[in-house]
């Protein structure tokens, strides 16, 4: 990958990765550091896998591992995303933001990849390094927990 190719890849993926790091990590102040570290490791890895989507999955896998390292280093569970988004947007977004904050990190990762990124079960398994067969069950449970939280907020 040369510099112009990297820049194009970066422009196409950085916003998506930033949103993932923020919604799963829950701390805005760490997002840009982790984002830069994820791209740095991606470049150093000389990843030569298939096409654009393979690269994106690999990048998200690096980001997921960085989040785990961050939590392990801090020796605490991740803080829920209590910060409010900056721009005034749809009310549903605030509901989702708060509901995600009440979920476990593993649920957040799975839900975000499935519904925001549109990843298949196989892709989620690859990014999160879990068994493909267990994604279906884990995702079902995470979805049920999120639905309960969203329904609870509306009532």
């Amino acid at each position, binding site marked *: 990958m040369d*510099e112009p190719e*990297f*820049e194009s890849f*970066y*422009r196409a993926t*950085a*916003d*998506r990765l*930033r*949103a993932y790091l*923020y*919604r799963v990590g829950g701390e805005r102040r760490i997002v*840009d550091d982790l*984002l*830069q570290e994820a*791209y*740095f490791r991606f*470049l*150093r890895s000389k990843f030569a896998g298939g096409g654009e989507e393979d690269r994106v999955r690999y990048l998200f896998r690096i980001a997921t591992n960085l989040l785990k390292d961050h939590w392990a280093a801090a020796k605490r569970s991740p803080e829920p995303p209590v910060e409010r*988004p*900056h*721009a005034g*947007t*749809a009310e*549903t*977004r605030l509901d*989702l*933001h708060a509901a995600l904050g009440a979920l476990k990190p593993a649920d957040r990762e799975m*839900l*975000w990849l499935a*519904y*925001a990124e*549109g990843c298949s079960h196989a892709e989620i398994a690859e990014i999160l390094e879990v068994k493909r067969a267990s994604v279906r069950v884990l995702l079902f449970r995470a*979805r049920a927990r*999120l*639905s309960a939280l*969203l*329904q609870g907020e509306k009532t």
Partner: protein
Amino acid sequence: MNEDELRNLFQRSRNEERWPEPLPDPAALWRRARAADLLAKELRRRERAASPLLTARRLAGWAALVAAELAALAGFSEIPKPALDALVNAGVSPWTVALLTLAALPAATLVYRMRREA
């Protein structure tokens, strides 16, 4: 909430996210990764360059130890008979003394190296 509603909710959330700060500069990231690559390459080159020297030092160390052991054995064979008789009378086998001497040399070398590296 069904699958489509969830997908819609998440994707709207993702697409509507607004950040006060601009994205970090990709050129700076590229330069940082390139600098790290060059540094790693240089370190590997230096390690490779130093490798024959380290091997030679290790071999020289082994050769010196073997020579010292042989010298000790040669010295032991030169011990006068009355001295050997005295050892036997004291209840110590000459072979035991020889083996202890041979074992003492590598042990002393090891202790010396450990102390130097500490």
